């Protein structure tokens, strides 16, 4: 590790319309180091790195590479400057082969034939040098996510990247895959390459980075030597105040089984089995948490339970009655409410006014209009009530939903589902991208629901959240439930189970 900076960002500023994603950011990354960037969802990490990679253009600011100012006007300039990036959402052509994806943009001549041979040879070399092996003739859509990520890394290496940016690479990986990735990153560093690693997992930061920078709400709030900081300090820097890791809650008093799942198998749109023969029960008055790395079938499980996706076999029972192929609308009538994982895509119609979203899914209720009519006055009155009760800001039911902040948007969803007073509540990622104040509020409501004797199923990729709220924890891995633990189980144990290693 030398002291010569590989990258210097000076005064980078970027707005997306009303959203100020990066505010006057300064950042220096030393050559031959692994530099971590952490921050909550929406802090502006991806934006900053995409600017460095030439994917977005900064509104103002300067980028220096190896001390020289570079005008990075597109990704080509960035690639030529030796920068490679593995995006949070993979940038692969799904029906192309690995080889085609790797050659794309670096074909080595106007005709493909020439480049193919040298690309194959180069791939072979990278494979042996870094342990990045993948079949060059496999079609991307048939590869597992971990392998797809490997292709992304290969793409960057193939272009001779000296500086490698990885945007949340471990979100889709099992711990062992993540370990393998970190090993590769170590090798890269040893060869003098510079790595920038974006994540919001503090443990990873502590484990492999040399330096870490923290972003909050578009600002770069601090940079520390990893050795000289602690998880606690980073967490505080990230959210701007002390984190309440524990939620106050009393003992659970579980009642009858309300929701049960028997041998449930669910396939995704591509026909891949995502939930494989899963069975469990949820009782009244308890919170069952489902822990797991994203992409292990939790989403499909929630979709099946809420009627959005039809399971391919097995059954779901409410009060012991099989629900058959009940639609989400029918399930709502049965007293099942659902806070979806992704409020932007499912929970809300961003272009609707707030009061319209406040009835989404319940719009056929006679309360909101008789017969086939809608009663706008009743809808607005209802929305105003919830706005007050949940302190949604600004308190205007006629405002377009897109114009609320993320936390308030989430409150709109939470209010809608909880205020129906359901008997069963499915909850997906309740606090994703939500600020601390709102997190506490939402957690409180969830506990209240339990104490009122509702059956709650909680899915979250945040282990802390699962542990703080759940009375029982089921761990999901590769579509299976690999084990059940209580909240007292150690992080270590749960982590291993999430990796599919121990039961």
């Amino acid at each position, binding site marked *: 590790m030398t002291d010569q900076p590989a990258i210097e960002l000076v005064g980078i500023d*970027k*707005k*997306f*319309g*009303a*959203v100020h994603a990066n505010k006057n950011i300064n950042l220096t990354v030393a050559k031959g180091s692994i530099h971590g960037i952490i921050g909550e969802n929406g802090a502006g990490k991806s934006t900053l790195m995409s600017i460095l990679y030439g994917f977005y253009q900064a*509104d103002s600011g300067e980028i220096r590479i190896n001390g020289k100012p570079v005008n990075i006007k597109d990704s080509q300039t960035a690639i030529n400057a030796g920068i490679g990036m593995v995006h949070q959402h993979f940038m692969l052509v799904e029906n192309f082969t690995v080889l085609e994806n790797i050659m794309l943009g670096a074909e080595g001549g106007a005709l493909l034939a020439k480049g193919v041979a040298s690309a194959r040879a180069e791939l072979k070399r990278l494979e042996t040098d870094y342990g990045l092996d993948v079949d060059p003739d496999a079609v991307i859509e048939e590869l597992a996510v971990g392998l797809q990520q490997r292709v992304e890394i290969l793409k960057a290496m193939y272009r001779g990247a000296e500086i490698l940016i990885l945007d949340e690479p471990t979100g889709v990986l099992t711990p062992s895959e993540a370990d393998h990735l970190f090993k590769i990153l170590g090798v890269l560093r040893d060869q003098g390459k510079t790595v920038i690693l974006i994540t919001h997992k503090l443990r990873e930061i502590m484990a492999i980075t040399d330096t870490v920078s923290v972003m909050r709400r578009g600002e770069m709030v601090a940079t520390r030597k990893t050795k000289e900081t602690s998880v606690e300090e980073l967490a505080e820097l990230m959210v701007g105040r002390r984190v309440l890791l524990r939620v106050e809650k009393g003992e659970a008093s579980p009642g009858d089984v309300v929701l049960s799942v028997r041998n449930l198998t669910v396939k995704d749109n591509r026909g891949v089995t995502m939930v494989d023969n899963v069975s469990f029960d949820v009782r009244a008055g308890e919170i069952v948490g489902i822990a797991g790395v994203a992409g292990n079938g939790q989403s499909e499980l929630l979709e099946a339970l*809420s*009627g*959005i996706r039809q399971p391919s076999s097995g059954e779901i029972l409410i009060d012991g009655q099989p629900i058959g192929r009940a*639609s*989400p*609308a*029918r*399930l*709502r009538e049965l007293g099942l409410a*659902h806070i*979806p994982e*992704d409020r932007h*895509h*499912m*929970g*809300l*119609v*961003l*272009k*609707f006014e707030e009061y*319209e979203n406040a009835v*989404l*899914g319940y*719009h*056929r209720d006679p309360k*909101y*209009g008789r017969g*086939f*009519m*809608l009663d*706008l006055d009743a809808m607005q009155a209802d929305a105003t009530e919830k706005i007050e009760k949940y302190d949604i800001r600004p308190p205007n039911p006629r405002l377009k939903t897109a114009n609320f902040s993320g936390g308030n948007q989430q409150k709109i969803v939470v209010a809608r589902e909880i205020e129906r007073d359901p008997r069963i509540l499915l909850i997906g990622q309740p606090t994703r991208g939500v600020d601390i104040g709102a997190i506490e509020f939402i957690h409180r409501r969830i506990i209240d629901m339990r104490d009122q004797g509702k059956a709650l199923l909680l899915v979250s990729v945040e282990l802390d959240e699962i542990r703080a709220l759940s009375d029982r924890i089921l761990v999901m891995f590769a579509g299976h439930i690999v084990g059940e633990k209580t909240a007292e189980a150690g992080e270590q144990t749960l982590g291993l189970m999430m990796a599919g290693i121990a039961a």
Partner: protein
Amino acid sequence: MSTASVSLPNWITYGLMPLLNLTLAFVISGLVVWLIGENPFEAVKLLLIGALGRGEGIGFTLFYATNFIFTGLSVAVAIHAGLFNIGSEGQAYLGGLGAALVALALDNYLPWYATMPFAILGAAAAGAAWAFIPAWLQAKRGSHIVITTIMFNFIGAALMVYLLVNVLIVPGKMAPETRTFLEGGQLPKLDWLMELFGLKLGAAPFNFSFIIALVMCVVVWFLIWRTKFGYEMRTLGISPSAASYAGIPYARTVIITMLISGGLAGMMALNPVMGASARLQVEFVGGAGFVGIAVSLMGRNHPLGIVLAALLFGILYQGGGELSFDMPNITRDMIVVIQGLVILFAGALEFMFRPALVRIYQNFVKA
């Protein structure tokens, strides 16, 4: 900085921007006129006089506008549910069959006002039926509705020609058309309405279907913004994933929406078939289905906007006809050019001026 998410006041989005787009379309049309060697200003004058100068001209203008209101509504309803129905043309063509069969069957026995409800139902049902298959294919098999509705325009045209040439034609007559409907199968002219304004309708075929069109505007407005089904349509149109989360049945919503859309397109046939020529002829739709796309786009998919845009196109159609009469060098097809330009600028290039307007507006607000 991207300007896409900056919001502008309504008067800019719904007033100034369409106006600028329209102006550009007309300026380019003017250039074409000038290229042909005619005076564009003179042309505009003749066009406006032709469309609005006399009672008869206004009658024709409103007659054409009636067609476009129906097809515009048809396109708009589908768009609200996220469906691009470019099959209004074919649905209207089939609608003519529905209307004509009713008229042929009943004109002998019933007065027009008794025939009319059946004719409306017949036209709407036939148009809806023609929309059903593309709708079903989209809903159940995921076939792209744009492509299937294009295909169905052609299939419909072939079917209608076959029927007119081989089945419905009056034996011994040359033109492939049905017999002329009797009074009982015709919609009455709206001379009284024109006379209220002291205008003479003359020969213009401005007829009762205009009133039906206006009623449908109200019905559509109500459907979209005041009913539960309208809410579901809009949810599906904006966010299919939210719709599925909300338990809004995709296939049912798509099919019903397309049936409504096709029904509205089919009702357009009342105007030319029962209101004007009193018979079913080949190609009577004459592109009105496609004009509906422009009308809906320009009217921002809102019934009120659609009425205004339909009036504009009515003026173009009627005024264009008169213009070509007075300036023989400019054929009536000039209006097709203008339509194309309006669709281009008000539709595909809808937001061309937005970034500039955002910049100007922001400077203005800051100042």
